[in-house]
């Protein structure tokens, strides 16, 4: 079934990563009369505005985008939180990788390797039970020392820390250790 103009516009507003301007819309729909495009767009916005839907088309930043209905916010927020819990941020990855390869390690050693303060990330990793505190170091300030947990091993499918990929393996996979460079 050929889609109507309103449905095509719906798909375009949906796929657009920034507010879709009327201009851009008309450009993509050059095979339709401009007046019809405008009419179908108005139609689309109206069909979403009766409040019977979980999403809506709104006009913002000079264009049109889909957004969730504000009334759904509590659940949207909860889902995003769950999502965030199950994933690691880039910072968490960096910190976790340092702990994995250098344990036991203190917070300031991690900081020195990353070049940034990592206390927030450490807290997150502790909450996710990927790392644990195993004691204090016998050095000035007696800083806490961290290790990865069994949960960390399970998460990455490892039996022991010795199973971590070595630098050579990663280099080989990434193709950085070229043994014979083909001549151009």
């Amino acid at each position: 079934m050929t889609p109507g103009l309103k449905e095509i516009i719906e798909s375009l507003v949906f796929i657009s990563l920034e507010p879709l301007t009327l201009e851009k819309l008309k450009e993509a729909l050059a095979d339709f009369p401009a007046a019809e495009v405008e009419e179908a767009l108005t139609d689309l916005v109206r069909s979403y505005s009766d409040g019977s839907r979980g999403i809506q088309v709104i006009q913002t930043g000079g264009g049109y985008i889909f957004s969730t209905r504000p009334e759904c916010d509590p659940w949207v927020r909860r889902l995003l939180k769950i999502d965030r819990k199950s994933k690691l941020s880039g910072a968490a990855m960096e910190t976790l990788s340092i702990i994995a390869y250098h344990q036991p390690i203190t917070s300031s050693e991690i900081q020195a390797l990353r070049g940034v303060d990592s206390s927030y990330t450490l807290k997150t990793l502790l909450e996710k039970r990927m790392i644990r505190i195993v004691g204090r170091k016998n050095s000035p300030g007696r800083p806490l020392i961290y290790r990865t947990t069994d949960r960390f091993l399970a998460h990455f499918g490892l039996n022991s820390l010795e199973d971590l990929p070595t630098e050579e393996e990663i280099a080989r996979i990434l193709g950085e250790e070229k043994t014979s460079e083909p001549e151009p």
Partner: protein
Amino acid sequence: MGTVLLEDRPQYEVRLEVFEGPLDLLLFLIRKKKIDVHNIPIAVITREYLDCLQRKERINLDREAEFLLMAALLIHIKSQMLLPREEPFPEEDPRRFLVDQLLEYQKIKAACAILKEKEEEQSLFWTREGLPPLAEAGDVDLAEVSLFDLAETFFSLMKRKEGENFRLVKGKSVSIENKMKEIVRLLEEESVLDFLEYFSRQETLEEAIVSFFSLLELIKARMVLAIQEQLFHSIKVWLRKDVARKGK
């Protein structure tokens, strides 16, 4: 239609590049000759296969070494088959391994054909790669991670550290002990060391990491005093007075 033409012309050209590998080429020849995979006339297929290789002016060893390997295997099987035997194939048919490999590869190729269609269908469905602004945009930083990511993160972090002047040099290993001695010696000579500067002066990544841990060891052993004045700023290292005295 083009395939009918192929059958009519014995001297058609087979371009090695169109095949994913030797198994792919073998399967093509087997089908062309209408041969039963379970009972391959090895002499015939070996000749066909070698013809294909010989027609090529130059074998690119980087990409096509596996084609030669298969040629060697075929010739080996052929010679096995020719050996005089008391009974036909008393133990095992020398073709057995190759046949199993071909059968499995054939299945994979068929699955690929089906998956290719699914990919084609799926390419018409567009999902979003990011959320438009507004709404409850989450952390863009978030990513699902694998073991590979973890390891890659670590080693690229190490490499990024203090610029690109690290080279991965093999065969030179440095011990923490030696590094510690070197640092102490430098401190005796210059009294203060800018550690980040020293760190980035290291020739190899390994050395840099070792030097870092040597410093930690020295601090732990209370032999040196290291102070980082501000976040991101350099670390200044001094020899502790008692140690310095002992050294003299």
